């Protein structure tokens, strides 16, 4: 029996890299891009061919025209979604991609806007898979984070997805004639627990009984 300890972060040993999991580098000639990619090539342990495919995308907020940055953000989001597509309903995925297309359409952005980051999208994706709720409305914050919203009648839940599984939530509940609001910041594993007092099953299906009660 070979037991794997799931509670301890594993030592970072060699990992077979995917053939084409990342976006290609844009054709920009900025020296900063070259230096960043060169550093990546030094630390990479993969073969030459794999490195060609996996050259990392410069942060969407930093380089290139707005159109270029939005394309990179959109492409990165779709590629990231592909990594977990086997866990997503096809129709859900199609509609989700339509939402992303609309959100990151060029005409909706100003040149100084910061497109949402891949790290934020990772948190968003992990969240929707974890909570198994209705597909949320999507938005973007000025600081480059995806925002997910659910509305049920007069009740509204908004979650800003920050990098590294950090989420900032704000909700408004109508309780009879009273309007109650609450807000907080937590990590994804704790999200359902912190929302437990506010009947999270209104929005999410994957709520254990002990949390929903």
């Amino acid at each position, binding site marked *: *029996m070979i037991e*794997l300890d799931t509670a301890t972060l594993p030592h970072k040993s060699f990992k*077979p890299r995917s053939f084409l999991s990342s976006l290609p580098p844009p054709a920009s000639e900025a020296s900063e891009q070259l230096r960043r990619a*060169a550093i990546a090539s*030094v630390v990479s342990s993969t073969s030459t061919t794999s490195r060609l495919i996996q050259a990392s995308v410069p942060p969407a907020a930093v380089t290139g025209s707005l159109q270029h940055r939005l394309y990179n953000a959109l492409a990165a989001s*779709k590629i990231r979604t592909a990594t977990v597509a*086997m*866990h997503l309903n096809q129709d859900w995925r199609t509609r989700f991609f339509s939402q992303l297309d609309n959100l990151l359409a060029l005409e909706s952005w100003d040149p100084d806007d910061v497109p949402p980051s891949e790290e934020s999208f990772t948190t968003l994706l992990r969240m929707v898979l*974890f909570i198994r709720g209705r597909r949320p409305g999507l938005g973007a914050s000025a600081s480059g984070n995806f925002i997910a919203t659910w509305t049920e009648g007069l009740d509204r839940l908004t979650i800003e997805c920050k990098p590294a599984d950090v989420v900032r939530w704000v909700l408004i509940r109508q309780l009879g004639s009273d309007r109650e609001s609450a807000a907080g910041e937590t990590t994804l594993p704790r999200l359902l627990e912190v929302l437990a007092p506010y009947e999270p099953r209104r929005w999410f299906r994957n709520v254990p009984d002990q949390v929903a009660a």
Partner: protein
Amino acid sequence: MPPYPKAPITEGVIHLRVAGVATADEQQKVVHRLTKHYPHSNPLQEFSLRIDTTGGEVAVDQKPQGFRLNTNDQTDVVLVFPDGIAAARLAPYQGWEYLRDRARVAHEEWRRSTAHRAVTRIGIRYLNRIDIPLNGVSQVDLATYLAFRPQIPEIGIGPIVGYMVQATLATDTPLWSASIASTIVTPPPLLNHVSLMLDIDVFRTEQIPGNEAELWRTIDDARLIKNRVFERCITDESRKLFA
């Protein structure tokens, strides 16, 4: 369609390498001809870094290495290399015929756009990720999910915290070899899961048919070999996860 409703495939790739090198113009022609199927294209660059440890100078060189083309949803990809072409599909996997047909179209455009060069290597590579729900446990027995796993003598007092195994060997089908690798995926894409990667690369470098129809029959053979390798590397508990 694949036999598993939730096939664990994250990438499927069919890669054909040819003798010699296509010119930049030839590569551009291939890209142009494939644009109707793959509207987005970007050049691939190889970067090399040279550090002079005595003078402290750093030099960075970049060399074009082909093109990457993809569909709007980013899930179908073609890679045009100077020495060949590859078609790839990200999840959700649509089945062998889907990927094979895309690869065939890509190769046809390659043949139409470049001087004749014999195929010197056929490679079929599938990356699989087995997502195991933890359900409150803190340890997972690898043998429950994988037949291809590390063999560890009793040198520690606790469970392992990481692993990587890799093997390359001839398969039981003449002329075909396989490289198999497995490791843990960190961080796991899903909360409250542990994910194990199983990377299978089936390849052939000898007696590759020059006739196009025979070439693709040969590539279809690789699918059966790949499937056989995959099924022998996993357990019934893994199969339940793909249902």
